[in-house]
């Protein structure tokens, strides 16, 4: 119960004035106090002679401890136990509940950790079939949204608060007075919930004339479903050896990124040379995470992906008349090398039944149809892709708009959604929506749509709701609440049930009723309980469906595409933001501050542009430009994105939200980003449009970027190789930089160890090349039971940044705001470094046009020979017996010498009290320097010491609930860094000791402890464990030949080692590089790691430096 003690009343022994000690001794209060404090002395008080003596010797104590200096003792705190304790509840032990986070067409199965009856951390459900317990960024951040002070907390009518009962009665009234449903319209979001589907159907049956519409600004299903003739594809990337992504960012931007990452990584995990690897081709205009991970990437404007896809389809699926006709209509752009297309198609064709083509949501149905056609022609159907029937399609927003304009809508029920903000600009939704007589909306925030609603009902967060969902393969998952709705929120299904006048309006009952359809034979209650316990119901996958081949022909023949973009007619791509999605997460501070996985910028929407196009317009990074598209204009800062298509601009959705008097973005999400992409986006071209004009405004705008330097400059920080190179020279990763010279280190024949000037006390146990492990029993400070280490596989790390947010959630890492991030003060304990490398064949400025990218999670390496430990003047950072570099926050005085000394720069300093002070310029306010309410703050503060809380009360109380009680919340002036989740380590060790009791079975079994980053990683790239256990996964991984240390030459001896990345390019492709580009740069500057050291063109550099060799 680590909470601030509540203010307590004056202690009984308050300030009392007495003229003499005798006087004091006579007062009953004093007597009582003495009896309590000094039971033995109490008797002496009565005896007049002994009393004198007693008073003499105790006089100082009286003064100090209450009768003079009241409050020298710590303030009195109360313990409030239960009156009646809930069964099974143990304070201090977290409980876990299985639930799921519903997404548009799927769900993320979860196990949520709950402390004291409130959820504090979201984890994936490892028991879920084919799920490793990983999550994505939105899921990790969703817990903060639960405790968002700006969420809707009340029921309103015309903006005035009304009692909940009144609003709920109104809903029932809607149903009662609806008749056949004439004039009743529903606007819904996408969901996979069978309960909502069932209620939709029941309400539709009851009101047959009611109209149903759905709108998602980023519709992840429409293209795929339309393109597959009413079927939904389910891709199995783990079954594929060759993957082609047509503008499909399945790693970061599409439905089900978690599952796709995991399956993709299964084909990327390499243990030894010769292990099979999959191959990824990407055709795209934006630089996406998938493009960064691709072995070959074709850079074309997004609107030209159709032409590219057609060309590949012509080659891979020959003989299809519709495809041939399309190829004539949309020829390949001249900038594209036809060999790229030919070889890619050949590779696909060579892997019949083991290849897969995916198309992204930004692409029109024609591209999805092409993907389906190629998959069908290559025999992939049923193996790497299966289809199922799409659910009933609801009407589109445009149809609702027509109805509204006709005045045919009397009651519009909006569930979720934020159409006033996110509807296409040509719909002018604010005025259109007002044409409905009554608008009832269920919303999570009182946002832009709120002022235009008659009734507004607060939506419950998924962590407080009963519901259900089906993951993309169809498995049923429960949405189980972990806490009562904090502010009386209600769910979608309850609203539908009330409107439909159904008997059971409680979501719990509705879900149970739906479950009866799935439960099958057997005891229903037992099945239900198991369902809630496990978090899924087995054997509920969707029935597969054959794809109707002729359906594709129609879609292909009616395909259209805009003209190719040019300098005067630029392409604008509206892309789903990696952090804010379509804007729904804009009030989530964690997501705002999460560096974008590709651009590494925070708190901003950028105008992404290619190097060449920027040059043509004469703009540089952070220049503000105006984009004009069909008469609509926005302004935004330019950001040159390596690998971006020419004559194309990338605009993020979700920014530019304002906060008005009546409603709008929350306090965090307001005024973030210069432009609102929705102001430019029209219904004719929702994802990309050609015809924009760019003009300079002459202004600049500060963009906060956490990693501006994108090049490793030939340093072997991320080490990689092509698969063939790895096969020929498996030890390449250790053959780089100064580690390549390790064979030159002379060995002392007596000890078998290298001669060393300095033997670090903790270095003993690690096996190095040629060294023998030191006898642990003789080392006092080295545990013989656990030695923790971590291995990060760079081949499977896709750069999704879920680990960064998981760490933030687990360890109470604060957010600092845009201004502080620009000063490099971001607090993320774990960061993903992203490096670009270009081909030296090109002119220097052109190197970033078609770069290769690598990502590397960088966290505290827990060096055995830590440079930070020896420089702390107060010994606040020490090394523990199990290999952890430990941080004692209460000892730190804020010298920051440790951060100065850290070569990895992973230590973060709390420059301000980020928890108590609102982020922004107010951080700099202190009682001494600022004033408020007309008085100097210092005077205010002296009168009321508790006013130092400059964060408003409602924010403070609510946001405190998201903190993990097992981790300290750090104050200003304290250094912090990755602790290997020491709270989880200690928790597991304690649990093991408790289990062991009076025995010696105290070693924690491998796999028990999962650090937060490890648990969140969907690809299992991060592995943590005990290096003393030879069978632990981490020990096995560290034995692999391509394991290496970052900056190992500094002799820091990090416990975090990396497995070098292995690429799998196709030698026949025109953009094939025989050596990964950043290693080429290294080889040019230092030496070829793929040859034995002495043979590498190594004598050159040595001769130049004149060193003997």
């Amino acid at each position, binding site marked *: *119960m*680590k909470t601030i003690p509540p203010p307590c009343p004056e202690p*009984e022994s308050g300030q009392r004035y007495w003229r003499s000690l005798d006087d004091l001794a006579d007062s009953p209060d004093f007597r009582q106090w003495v009896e*309590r*404090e*000094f*039971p033995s002395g109490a008797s002496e008080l009565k005896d007049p002679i002994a009393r004198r003596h007693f008073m003499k010797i105790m006089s*100082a*104590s009286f003064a*100090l*401890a209450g009768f003079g200096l009241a409050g*020298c*003792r*710590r303030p*009195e*705190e*109360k*313990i*409030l*136990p*239960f*009156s*009646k*304790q809930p069964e099974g509840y*143990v*304070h*201090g*032990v977290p409980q876990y509940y299985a639930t799921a986070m519903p997404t548009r067409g799927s769900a993320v199965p979860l196990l949520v950790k709950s402390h004291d009856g409130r959820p504090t951390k979201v984890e994936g459900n490892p028991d879920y079939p084919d799920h490793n317990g990983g999550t994505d960024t939105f899921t990790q951040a969703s817990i903060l949204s639960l405790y968002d002070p700006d969420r809707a907390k009340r029921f309103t009518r015309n903006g005035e608060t009304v009692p909940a009962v009144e609003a709920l009665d109104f809903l029932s009234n809607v149903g009662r007075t609806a008749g056949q449903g004439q004039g009743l319209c529903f606007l819904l979001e996408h969901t996979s919930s069978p309960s909502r589907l069932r209620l939709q159907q029941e309400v539709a049956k009851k009101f047959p004339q009611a109209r149903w519409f759905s709108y998602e600004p980023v519709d992840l299903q429409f293209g795929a479903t339309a393109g597959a003739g009413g079927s939904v594809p389910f891709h199995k990337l783990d079954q594929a050896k060759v993957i082609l992504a047509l503008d499909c960012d399945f790693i970061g931007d599409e439905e089900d990124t978690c599952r796709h990452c995991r399956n993709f990584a299964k084909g990327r995990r390499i243990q030894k040379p010769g292990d099979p690897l999959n191959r990824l081709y990407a055709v795209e205009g934006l630089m996406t995470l998938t493009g960064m991970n691709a072995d070959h990437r074709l850079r074309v404007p997004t609107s030209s992906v159709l032409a590219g896809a057609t060309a590949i389809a012509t080659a891979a699926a020959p003989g299809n008349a519709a495809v041939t006709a399309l190829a004539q209509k949309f020829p390949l752009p001249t900038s594209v090398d036809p060999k790229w297309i030919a070889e890619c198609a050949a590779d696909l064709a060579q892997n019949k039944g083991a290849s897969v083509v995916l198309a992204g949501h930004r692409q029109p149905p024609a591209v999805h149809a092409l993907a389906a056609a190629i998959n069908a022609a290559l025999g992939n159907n049923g193996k790497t892709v299966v289809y199922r029937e799409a659910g009933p399609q609801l009407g589109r927003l445009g149809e609702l708009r027509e109805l509204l304009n006709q005045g045919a809508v009397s009651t519009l029920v909006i569930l979720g959604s934020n159409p006033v903000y996110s509807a296409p600009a040509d719909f002018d939704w604010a005025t259109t929506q007002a044409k409905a007589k009554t608008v009832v909306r269920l919303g999570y925030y009182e946002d832009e749509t709120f002022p235009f609603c008659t009734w507004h009902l607060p939506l419950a967060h998924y962590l407080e709701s009963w519901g259900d969902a089906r993951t993309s393969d169809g498995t049923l998952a429960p949405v189980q609440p972990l806490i009562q709705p904090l502010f009386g929120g209600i769910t979608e299904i309850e609203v539908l049930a009330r409107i439909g006048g159904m008997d059971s309006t409680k979501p719990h009952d509705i879900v149970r009723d739906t479950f009866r359809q799935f439960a099958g034979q057997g005891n229903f209650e037992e099945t239900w309980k198991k369902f809630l316990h496990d978090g899924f119901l087995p054997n509920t996958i969707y029935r597969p469906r054959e794809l109707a081949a002729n359906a594709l022909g129609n879609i292909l023949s009616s395909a259209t595409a805009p003209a190719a973009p040019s300098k005067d007619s630029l392409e604008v791509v509206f892309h789903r933001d990696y952090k804010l999605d379509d804007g729904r997460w804009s009030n989530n501070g964690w997501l705002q501050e999460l560096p974008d996985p590709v651009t590494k910028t925070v708190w901003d929407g950028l105008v992404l542009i290619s190097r060449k196009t920027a040059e043509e317009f004469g703009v540089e990074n952070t220049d503000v430009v105006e984009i004009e598209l069909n008469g609509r204009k926005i302004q935004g800062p330019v950001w040159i994105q390596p690998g971006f298509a020419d004559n194309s601009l990338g605009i993020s959705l979700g920014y530019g939200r304002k906060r008005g008097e009546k409603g709008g973005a929350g306090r965090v999400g307001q005024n973030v980003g210069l432009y609102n992409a929705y102001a430019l986006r029209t219904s004719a071209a929702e994802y990309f449009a050609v015809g924009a004009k760019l003009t300079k405004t002459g202004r600049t705008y500060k963009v906060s970027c956490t990693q501006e330097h994108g090049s490793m400059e030939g340093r072997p920080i991320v080490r990689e190789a092509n698969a063939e190179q790895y096969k020929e020279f498996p030890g390449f990763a250790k053959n780089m930089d100064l580690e390549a010279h390790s064979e030159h280190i002379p060995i002392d024949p007596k000890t078998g160890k290298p001669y060393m000037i300095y033997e670090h006390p903790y270095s003993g146990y690690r096996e190095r090349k040629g060294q023998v492990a030191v006898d642990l029993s003789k080392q006092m400070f080295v*545990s013989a*039971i656990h030695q923790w280490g971590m291995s990060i596989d760079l081949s499977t790390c896709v750069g999704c940044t879920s680990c960064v947010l998981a760490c933030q959630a687990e360890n109470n890492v604060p957010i600092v705001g845009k201004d502080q991030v620009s000063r490099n003060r971001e607090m993320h304990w774990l960061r993903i470094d992203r490096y670009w490398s270009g081909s030296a064949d090109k002119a220097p400025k052109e190197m970033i046009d078609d770069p290769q990218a690598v990502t590397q999670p960088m966290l505290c390496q827990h060096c055995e020979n830590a440079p930070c430990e020896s420089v702390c003047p107060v010994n606040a950072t*020490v090394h*523990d*017996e*199990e290999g*952890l570099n*430990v941080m*004692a*926050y*209460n*000892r730190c005085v804020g010298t920051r010498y440790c951060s100065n000394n850290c070569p990895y720069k992973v230590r973060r300093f709390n420059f301000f009290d980020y928890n108590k002070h609102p982020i922004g310029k107010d951080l700099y306010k202190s009682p001494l320097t600022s004033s408020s309410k007309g008085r100097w703050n210092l005077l205010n503060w002296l009168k009321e010491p508790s006013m130092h809380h400059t964060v408003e009360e409602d924010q403070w109380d609510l946001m405190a609930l998201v903190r993990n009680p*097992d*981790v*300290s919340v750090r104050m200003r002036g304290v250094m912090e860094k990755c*602790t290997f989740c*020491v*709270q989880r*380590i*200690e928790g597991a060790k*304690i649990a093991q*000791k*408790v289990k*062991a*009791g*009076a*025995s*010696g079975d*105290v070693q924690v079994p491998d796999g028990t402890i999962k650090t937060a980053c490890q648990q969140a990683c969907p690809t299992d790239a991060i592995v943590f464990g005990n290096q003393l256990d030879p069978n632990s996964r981490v020990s096995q991984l560290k034995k692999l030949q391509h394991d290496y240390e970052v900056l190992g030459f500094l002799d820091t001896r990090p416990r975090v080692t990396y497995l070098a990345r292995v690429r799998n390019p196709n030698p026949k492709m025109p953009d094939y590089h025989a050596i990964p580009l950043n290693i080429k740069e290294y080889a040019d500057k230092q030496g070829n790691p793929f040859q034995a050291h002495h043979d590498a063109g190594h004598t050159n550099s040595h001769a130049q430096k004149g060193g003997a060799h």
Partner: protein
Amino acid sequence: MPNVFPRWTNRLPALALVGLLLVGTAATAGLWYYFTPKYTRVGYSPIQPVPFPHSVHVEQLGMDCRYCHSAVEKSWYSNVPASQTCMNCHNQVLKDDPRLAPIRESATPGSRPVEWVQIHKLPDYVYFNHSVHVNRGISCVHCHGDIHKMDEVYHAKPLNMTFCLECHRNPAPNLRPPDKVTDLAWDPHKHLPPDWGAKAKKEWKVNASQNCSACHR
């Protein structure tokens, strides 16, 4: 030149220095003694809303600690029992006693809990775990003193970091068989051979960490 300062001021610097040293020593000594947890905490016995005597319940009646402090073996936190636990007996025993009125009131549904005053409190940056100590042979009396003899609980040991380290540096003398952990009157010196602790430490692989990460996270 006339004497500006009288003669006696010649002694002032020396006197000032001596005085300063004396005051400094006194202040340091005073702080050293009076401001340490050993002085400020030991003996602290606040007035509780109900004068619950451990001596009656534990020594006379023989109740085990874990009957009330039920979470001590499972959690870091050793809970003060819910009023319902008290009412298990006190709905019959002393059922009208005025001293038990707060308990009876709080046990009725919908009422506020009893506001016990917390006696043993460690700073927020210390993460102490009861379960690992109780399950590994450290008795309650080691840190809480002779609770079974207390009429009103007082803070018996300083519970400062020195106190914790004293045991962590040498846990063997403080170990006892796990089934005797809550037997507060049991004297290990009378019942155990002198090297029992050292043997237990080895056999159980008692590894009382002296490192910061054990308690400070």
